[in-house]
């Protein structure tokens, strides 16, 4: 009886933390400074299973954040944990659970894709008895099987990108970190890999850093906007788009009007329509233009709205 009581109490107390951190990537107050330059400032977030997009302007700190989570560089302060396993106190267990594709990466040019992936299977500690099978499996998923015998020297950037993605999948990761994984891929391949990431996210946390948010918007569970070294937004995409509601305007301007106004407007898109310019303007207040009307924001409008909002503040 006492035993049952103790078990119940233990279940009520200790697993509280486990339940919260199960299938979760938790970042706690991550700050990174490079000499005098602060790259990331107090980033805290929790990500459950699903597809999450990390976006933001160049230099916002996206790559630095992914490199910290992948254990490539250490943060100045803060903690990273995956499913309750801390990166800094148990890096072997942590890294055994992640797959990472850097933004810029190279290959050993004299190796074939098969040999290259086998090399990484060994580096990931995958037992030799299953390594060959895992290599075949990820080559099949990344659709590079028919090129397996060609040395990587002859591969295009897009093909190498697929090898990089395959490498990230070798250890059936619980957390998949991909920095600009769609760069170098043609539209058809991008479509395939967007779907692939979405499907993979049903069983794991997939965190993609990308500028191509429109293509992934329908599939993503949440989006994070990193700007000025801080997390400016985190949540579902519809909620992000709500923030720009009432801040996007459509106006039709003559060439002269456009030339007069263009320096003072923040524009998300511009279309030439038989000598008249159809302009989507980002502004928290109604622009002083005749005939301007409020329109529903697109994802791109929202992105520009949020980034420019910080500038004006």
């Amino acid at each position, binding site marked *: 009886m006492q035993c049952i009581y103790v078990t119940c109490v233990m279940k009520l107390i200790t697993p509280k933390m486990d339940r919260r951190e199960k299938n979760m990537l938790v970042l706690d107050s991550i700050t990174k400074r*490079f000499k005098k330059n602060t790259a990331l400032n107090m980033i805290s977030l929790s990500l459950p299973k699903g597809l999450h997009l990390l976006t933001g302007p160049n230099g916002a700190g996206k790559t630095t954040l992914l490199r910290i989570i992948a*254990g*490539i560089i250490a943060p100045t302060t803060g903690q990273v944990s995956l499913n309750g396993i801390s990166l800094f106190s148990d890096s*072997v267990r942590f890294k055994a659970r992640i797959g*990472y594709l850097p933004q810029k990466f190279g290959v050993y040019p004299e190796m074939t894709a098969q040999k290259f992936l086998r090399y990484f299977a*060994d580096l990931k500690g995958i037992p030799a008895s299953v390594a060959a099978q895992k290599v075949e499996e990820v080559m099949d998923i990344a659709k590079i099987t028919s090129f397996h015998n060609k040395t990587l020297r002859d591969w295009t950037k897009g093909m190498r990108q697929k090898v990089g993605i395959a490498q990230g999948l070798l*250890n059936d990761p619980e957390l998949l970190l991909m920095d600009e994984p769609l760069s170098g891929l043609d539209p058809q391949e991008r479509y395939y890999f967007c779907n692939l990431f979405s499907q993979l996210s049903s069983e794991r946390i997939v965190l993609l850093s990308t500028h191509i948010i429109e293509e992934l918007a329908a599939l993503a569970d949440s989006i994070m906007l990193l700007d000025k070294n801080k997390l400016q937004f985190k949540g579902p995409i519809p909620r992000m788009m709500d923030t720009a509601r009432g801040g996007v305007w459509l106006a039709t301007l003559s060439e002269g009007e456009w030339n007069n106004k263009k320096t003072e407007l923040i524009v998300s898109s511009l279309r030439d329509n038989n000598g008249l310019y159809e302009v989507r303007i980002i502004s928290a207040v109604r622009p002083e233009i005749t005939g301007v009307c409020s329109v529903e924001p697109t994802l791109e409008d929202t992105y520009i709205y949020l980034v420019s909002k910080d500038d004006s503040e």
Partner: protein
Amino acid sequence: MDKYQEILGEIDKDENDKEMVAVLNKLSNYTVPEPTVAMTSSLLNNLKTVLRENDTSSNEAPFIKPIDRVAIQKTVDAGSLLSIFRLVKPQMNILTWRFIVTTSLIIFAGIFLTSGDTSLIFLTNGAPILGLLTLFYEHRAQLYGTNEMEASCPYTPAQLAGARIIVTLGYTVIVCLIATGMIALSFSDILINEKILLWNTILAWLAPMVFFLGISLAVSLRLGIGYGCGSAFLIWVMQIVFEQNDFGNRFIQAGLLREMPMVFLVIGLLLIAMHIRYLRNEIDYSQNG
């Protein structure tokens, strides 16, 4: 003609399309032997992989077989020396056959083309360069940009560095031992009559090689492997220049260098140990933001 209609219908062409009918007429005149079953199945086999890869419409969730993470942890965590030895095999794959053949041929050709104690001098001066070249080649990851992917793997930078040093030392020592054997066989007078012990001959090339490897690894901690090997090479050139001038000659003849190989060997080993120890303590070895 019914066949024509069927084909033209399939490709959305009018059955009276004169141009297409002419093409079909022309095609009908060609006679091609009917493919055998073996030919058809061979063609299908060749196409299957490509067709499957191009089928981007598939919405089937990819199945990644679960992996035994406990086995991974055991492999990586196993007593640090054992785990380093497990890493040696993949690191050996980085040394290409072309590199092995070229470098060892240069050393063996040098021994072959020199004679007497010149061979020994060649080996003593050549071993550090072979060591530096092998070290640089083993660390190509930094040059090609595979190092980030490698660093995200469960093995620590120290384990990886340890394995690479073992491969570098292993390969260089094997080549130089064979070269020593060649010298001993061809010019046995040097080793027997002048009573130079084999150990001293080995120490003569081993010490500078380990010393220069130690320097390059120590410098690489701050400046990367390229600068590490470059600075060690510069010191090697300075040493050669020093040995060639009068002061250096007097220094050597005075016998002041007699005890030096052992000192250089110890310094080199200490620098290598320092390199591994530094990597064990530091995760933030890459500061490029």
